[in-house]
């Protein structure tokens, strides 16, 4: 009896440590190699005296259709601050509005199919006073999305930046 118990315990321990190993390696894989559910990209389109047009791309990297809330994101327009902007390492203040909208309804979420993208081109000079120099843009807003239940919103902190000379 005693021997059997010991064997069982050893087996249990093995199973446990294997599970722990799986958990750790999975955790590492998640944080290190897995692509984020929503990807983001910024690209300079045109630069002129009045316009500094940046194209923002949001991509659904998951295998599922997502419902994404455009509120406060680049894919809605200049209704909120979603960028950190600096010119020659000095912070440039956002001059646009910030809209308050309460709680979103189902209709406020828009379908973003698997691997599909939204693109939006916005003129930075509409809301930032930018002359010339070394310009850095960092997307800082989060995007709210759901798979089904809008009462269980998930947040994707987008990670994209752009550094250009203008």
């Amino acid at each position, binding site marked *: 009896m005693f021997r059997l118990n010991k064997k069982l315990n050893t087996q249990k321990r093995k199973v446990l440590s294997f599970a722990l190993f799986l958990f750790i390696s999975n955790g590492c894989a998640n944080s290190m190699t897995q692509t984020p559910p929503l990807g983001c990209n910024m690209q300079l389109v045109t630069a002129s005296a009045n316009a500094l047009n940046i194209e923002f791309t949001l991509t659904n990297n998951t295998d599922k259709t997502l419902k994404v809330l455009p509120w*406060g994101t680049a894919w809605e327009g200049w209704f909120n601050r979603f960028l950190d902007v600096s010119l020659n390492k000095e912070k440039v203040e956002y001059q646009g509005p*910030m809209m308050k909208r*309460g709680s979103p309804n189902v209709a406020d979420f828009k379908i973003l199919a698997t691997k599909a993208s939204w693109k939006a081109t916005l003129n930075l000079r509409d809301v930032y006073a930018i002359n010339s120099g070394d310009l850095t843009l960092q997307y800082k807003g989060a995007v709210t999305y759901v798979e089904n239940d809008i009462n269980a919103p998930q*947040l994707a902190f987008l990670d994209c930046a752009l550094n250009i000379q203008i």
Partner: protein
Amino acid sequence: MKTIKLTTLAASLLIANVALAKGIEVDLSTASQSITAKEDLTISVTFTNTESEPLKLLSWYIPTQDTKEALFKVKKDGYKQMYFGAHAKRAAPQSEDYIEIQPNESVSYEVELTGLYDLSVTGNYNIQYAVNYASLVQDSNNQTMKSRLVSKPVNVWVEGRGESFDDRTAASDITTQIQGISYTGSCSNTEKNTLSSALQAASSIANNSVSYLGNEFGNRYNARYDTWFGNYSSSRWNTVRNNFNAIKNAIDTKGMTFDCSCNQSYFAYVYPSQPYKVYFCNAFWNAPLTGTDSKAGTIIHELSHFNIVAGTDDIAYGQSGAKSLANSSPYSAIQNADSHEYFAENTPYQN
């Protein structure tokens, strides 16, 4: 002699005929002869086609939500009162800018005047519709028939609110407790009263938040803080406390400018670089005074956005969004405007 007299008679008949051919007549009426400072002044404007053919009236001069001209002459003690509304600069009118009124047909519109004219001083006001525009009224052949429309005046006794135009311009220099509100964008009396109550209510929940956050040792692990700002850390607590101190300070000591011109479905908006002007939109007027997504909470939310107050962002929306943010990223929750609003509203109540 006789001939001359006849000619004169004919001429005067002709003149009488022209005078009778009024085209469109305009009449004003009010529901009451006097209003208190808490009431709005609504005027009915009725246009009647007195001709036997359809006539066209330029819609720019019809009082509606979108009117961008001064349509009225408002006088007190013989002095013309200031018009606060919009003046549009436009190209020549097109045919779609006219409405057609059938023979003997009347069309009526209502317009609220306390938001448009300076009715701030107690007294008897003399109000007249008076518009002058080159092609104001046209006949069916698009020929201008009349360029001037004037109604008989109506008289209304108005109890003043004590905010003349001079007071409004001076308001930005005054630093009084809460009362320092200037209004722009044609706020009606009802709207001004609502905004004043909303600011009082905002002041009360800001004070409550400040006192809660002042008791760090008693409250740091309590549900109210944890729900909206996540796990306690002393530096994050400090940030939130400083934010609410700044919000309270803004309410207590800074002159606010509240604007009522927004007709969109949002609650409100601000330009974070332009303190302390807040634009209120449709959803705000339908919100409860206190509680979740309330008028009071909206003011907390908006003030928190100003760079020199707390410089918050809109990261997550609604109570479920804000709760999820507090769970997953307390660092972001303390930068989120809705998190501040829900913490201040504290509905349902938590310790």
